[in-house]
């Protein structure tokens, strides 16, 4: 069973000499990454939002190692049904990796888990009166899977798309069938400014005492443990261990990973929010 064809396990392994060179370089203080980045530095990436006119929100992003991802968000009005009680399935996330036959349910789960974190207040904004609600479809299309783990690419693109998602304004009463404002300018954002933003997931790898953000494929295979840290606003809302790496990790390292992720995420958020403002 290979849950992630897109991870570093595809292809042949690195040679022992190569691995030991990488491992030693990365455990030095200060560490030397193969491309001379600092531990918290990301590879430059290209992003744009609002690219698909037929969606409620969309974004596209090209990752440093060639991964490319497009996200489209569509919203439909749905009647509250008796069989599916919870508002949990009001947001549906699909991940399609092009070139791979099976949809990657695993990746979708990672995104969904952080997106549906309780208390974020998104689900309340989807309520349309007593009998109807919005159903939001987030379709993630991974055009070119990156060499490293795609979780970060997916969540950053999803973040951008959701930040730019607008739902038409409801003008009918609570008990009536929903009627919407025709004027697109009056549409309401799904994630208003000032409320809790959508989450992002950062990939962190630890090698000895050092931790690295945005690891490349080689760094992933030389690392001890690969963690995906989901961050929503200023809070860590989820940590997951990913495939890859070769050993266990001390708890002190986990704590450092969480602490530094929060700091780095703040920077990432402010950069993401400025996408599209420049032009």
């Amino acid at each position, binding site marked *: 069973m290979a849950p992630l064809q897109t991870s570093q396990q595809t292809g*042949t*392994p*690195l*040679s*022992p*000499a*190569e691995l*030991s*060179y*990488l491992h*030693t*370089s990365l455990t*030095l203080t200060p560490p*030397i*990454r*193969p*491309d*001379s*980045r*600092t531990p*918290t*530095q*990301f*590879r*430059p*990436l*290209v*992003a*744009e939002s609002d690219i698909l006119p037929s969606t409620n929100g969309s974004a*596209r992003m*090209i990752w440093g190692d060639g991964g490319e991802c497009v996200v489209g968000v569509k919203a439909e009005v749905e009647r509250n049904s008796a069989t599916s009680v919870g508002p949990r399935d009001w947001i549906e996330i699909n991940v399609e990796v092009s070139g791979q036959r099976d949809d990657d349910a695993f990746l979708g789960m990672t995104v969904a888990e952080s997106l549906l974190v309780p208390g974020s207040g998104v689900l309340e904004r989807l309520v349309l009166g007593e009998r109807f609600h919005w159903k939001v479809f987030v379709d993630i299309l991974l055009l070119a899977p990156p060499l490293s783990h795609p979780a970060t690419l997916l969540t950053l693109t999803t973040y951008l798309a959701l930040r730019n998602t607008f739902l038409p304004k409801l003008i009918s009463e609570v008990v009536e069938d929903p009627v919407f404002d025709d004027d697109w300018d009056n549409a309401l954002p799904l994630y208003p400014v000032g409320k809790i933003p959508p989450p992002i997931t950062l990939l962190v790898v630890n090698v000895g005492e050092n931790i690295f*953000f*945005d690891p490349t494929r080689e760094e992933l295979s030389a690392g001890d443990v690969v963690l995906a840290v989901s961050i929503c606003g200023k809070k860590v809302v989820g940590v997951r261990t990913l495939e890859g790496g070769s050993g266990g990790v001390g708890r002190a390292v986990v704590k450092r990973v969480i602490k530094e992720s929060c700091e*780095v995420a703040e*920077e*990432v958020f402010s*950069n*993401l929010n*400025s*996408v599209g403002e*420049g*032009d």
Partner: protein
Amino acid sequence: MPISILPPQPAQYLLPPDPDSDRENEKVVLDEDGDFVRMISTPRKRSKAIPIVTPGEIVTSDPQWMRGHGTCLMRGRDSAVDGDDSDVNKLLSVKPLRARYTPEIGDLVVGRIAEVQSKRWKVDINSTLMAHLLLSSINLPGGILRKRTSTDELQIRSFFSEGDLLVAEVQSLFQDGAASLHTRSLKYGKLRNGYFLKVKAGGIVRGKSHIVTLEAANGAGEVDVILGVNGYVWVSKKVTLQAPPGGESITRLEEEASEAIYSNVNEDIAPVTRREIARVGNCVRAMVRWNVRVDEEVLNAVYLSALELEEMGFTEEGGSSNGPECLEGEVGRRAVEAGMERVREANSKARGMVE
């Protein structure tokens, strides 16, 4: 700044094709992708303006031409692959501008073992087909002239195992275009003490020497760069073979060396050397990123420019927290441009000397 998110931009053409190239009989052509290629200017009148053809295009209807690679016969001749056409005497062939690596006899390549079979290895050399490395075409430990035995066959994994990197030369080509490699020279063999990187196959110039030794800055010693024609590059610390104490014969030295050929253990590499190795790797990557083909001269120049840029403290706006050796984005472009300028200066100076 830990992260920089850029808006999408149209493809950037880094350098205008240099007008005073030292290779006089060459012409530089810029194609749509922003790649520029050097090609021999043809005596033919028709193709002087745009020697780039597209599939299906009729190249010539003149019956005096012979049909070469990448062309096929319809009523006239037309090209099958996208690329520039060149002709040698009356042979007309079309080469793709950007494709996977096509091995040619004598090429120096860097490869990675993908599969071990009973008497041979399959080697990934970024080509359409896996290359073969026969057990009989490697140097066996214990002297070059040793006979291959069945014991060697049994312990084939002790020489090269899956994932191992090696540098080799293309010895011959099979009928289907797959390459057969050999490592029967002390220059070739297993790679250690360094870092592997991959660029596109066309990024490396097929030139005279592919093993470049750079005098690294900051007291890092010498750094070897192996520029595989297939786009695989190996940057490592230069390791010199030490003569054993007692001044033994040269054959003894060879034996000693060949014993160590297949070791997987790196030597001690100082952090400063590691840093320079990373910088050289960044230079190669930046050059290919900005459409400059890599050869010894240009690599040397770009490396020096990168060092200079660091000294000048050039960083992107607000990018003060970047690693000093990092050549991503704009910094890389500056370094490559400065390097190309340096090459041009050197060329014009050399020409002045000749005159």
